[in-house]
């Protein structure tokens, strides 16, 4: 300030000084203090909202753990369901059912999902309308409600063209179709993140397009693809609604098989059934089931997201 006002001759300098002084004066007046207060309140509200979100979601886990604690014991894993004796009831057939269901989903979804993603990213010419249609289709399918997939499973897989009946394989196929778009979208993202120079280098050395994809692009995209697959699988584990429609019966007391036609069960379906019974014992049992499911799911999701962040490559 002193040096500026020390140059009297120049009108422009005085003009600038006056302007700066006016701004400074305004900054020191009431106005910015009000801004400061408003800003602080705003910040506090944002923080509050985030806290509410995190606490609300954490409460789901904590409440299940607290409520289900009395029922958590080895019999939960070894005993079958029971309507008469909730203290002895468990989840064994449902757990085995879910494991089979998920094995089927993995076998179907990994090759189909990655294959579709490779086609869309590496081969499909985006100028062509059919490729754009496929793309839009996948994006929309990812948002179709899961119960609609249940209807599809009921009309197309259990009955109708495939006519498999109410068997575990039909449930598996339904869940696979449900999570397929998620896998495709994640795999595409991962493949797109591999820079073109890698492909060009490989092609320039004489590799064919498929050799380039198999030896260069896919290995580089693996962390992203694996993340997508794990997230999709964990979604499939927790999906309940479509299974209600394709025959996951609740009180199956024997261990299910893939093609056996005397019924199968799944963990979330049995949890849902226990929860909708009015007796407290069954609700405790349902909470214990939720704990088992959440432990598996949260571990899987954490691993998947850690994997993605860890190997997020900067080329």
């Amino acid at each position: 300030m002193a040096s500026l006002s020390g140059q009297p001759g120049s009108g422009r300098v005085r003009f600038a000084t006056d302007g700066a002084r006016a701004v400074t004066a305004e900054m020191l007046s009431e106005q910015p203090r009000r801004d400061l207060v408003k800003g602080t309140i705003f910040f506090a509200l944002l923080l509050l909202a985030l806290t509410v979100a995190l606490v609300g979601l954490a409460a789901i886990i904590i409440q299940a753990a607290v409520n289900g604690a009395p029922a958590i014991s080895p019999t939960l894993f070894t005993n079958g369901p029971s309507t008469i004796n909730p203290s002895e009831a468990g989840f064994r057939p449902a757990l085995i059912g879910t494991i089979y269901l998920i094995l089927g989903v993995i076998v179907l979804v990994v090759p189909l999902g990655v294959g579709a993603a490779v086609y869309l990213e590496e081969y499909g010419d985006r100028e062509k309308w059919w490729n754009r249609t496929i793309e839009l289709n996948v994006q929309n399918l990812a948002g179709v409600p899961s119960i609609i997939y249940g209807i599809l499973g009921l009309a197309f897989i259990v009955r109708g063209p495939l006519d498999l009946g109410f068997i575990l394989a039909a449930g598996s196929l339904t869940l696979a179709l449900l999570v397929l778009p998620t896998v495709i979208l994640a795999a595409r993202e991962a493949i797109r993140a591999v820079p073109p120079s890698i492909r060009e280098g490989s092609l320039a050395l004489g590799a064919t397009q498929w050799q380039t994809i198999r030896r260069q692009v896919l290995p580089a995209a693996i962390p992203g693809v694996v993340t997508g697959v794990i997230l999709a699988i964990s979604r499939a584990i927790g999906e309940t609604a479509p299974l209600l429609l394709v025959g996951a019966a609740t009180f199956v007391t024997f261990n299910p098989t893939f093609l056996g036609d005397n019924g199968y069960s799944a963990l979330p379906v049995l949890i849902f059934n226990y929860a909708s019974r009015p007796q407290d014992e069954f609700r405790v049992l349902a909470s214990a089931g939720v704990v088992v499911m959440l432990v598996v799911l949260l571990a899987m999701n954490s691993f998947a997201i850690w994997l993605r962040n860890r190997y997020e490559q900067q080329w």
Partner: protein
Amino acid sequence: MATGDIRAFGTGGPAGRRPVPSLEAPSPRYGEKAIRGLLALCALLSVLTTTAIVVSLLLPTLDFLAEVPIGEFLFGTTWAPTFTPADFGVLPILVGTLSTSLWGMLVAVPIGLASAIFLSEYASPRTRKVIKPVLEVLAGIPTVAIGIFGLIFLSPLIEPILPFMVKVPPFSAGIAGIAIGLMIVPIIASISDDSMRSVPQGLREAAYGLGATRMKVATRVVFPAAISGIIASLVLAGSRAVGETMIVLLVAGASPNLTFDPGSSVQTMTAFIGTTATGDISTGTITYDTIFAVGALLFAITLVLNLFAIRMVRKYREVYE
């Protein structure tokens, strides 16, 4: 590569006498073509899935509409499809769906957007690096777990405090809404945060340079600049709320009431499908066809929402990426 080709490229004599090298691939590479075809089939499966969904919904819906006039279905105000005489007015369960979704959005939109602004504009990179993955992990909580939370925790908790929220304990559209809100908060927060972070830093710096406060930069510059992504996140969340089944099955009850009252018990479209389709209903009956007609309506609603959201996402990608 066949040896002949190498010679054709590598050992040419003086320019004039060199034979013109073949620029064709040395073999037809049938394997490459087969692989391409196989991969295209994988991609085509998604189109087949959509076709199968549409066909399997449409055929029974047409059967349904042959028996129930479309006007009665869409505008009737009584829903009792399994009674005799049956009423097929879909409005009560449509309003049930809208009601639970609306209450869910009312909870989730402010919380989700505020969380997104915090993560994108206020949080330090370190905080963000912790909270974003936590949100993503929590987004994976199965909805049946959230429904149980609503049924055996939220409902008994809220009933004594706000009796008008739970008129038919333990069922309540409003409580179902809160549970749905918990389900969609991570979606809104995560996608909105992504779209706000893709706003170029230059816009923020310019606003700061003009003397804007942090709050003004966030609300008047970044938020409007990211609006298409934010709208997309809201629409996607709305679509998820409309299609949610387990939460409403557990918490909203099963009485088709034509009301937006948060304390009332309602049946939603998804809950109707979920309860009715579990039994061994035989094909060809009107009850069986009703499931598909309601499914078709639900599919149409979410289709419109999804396509709108996809367009909005494309828009913000085009602008800043």
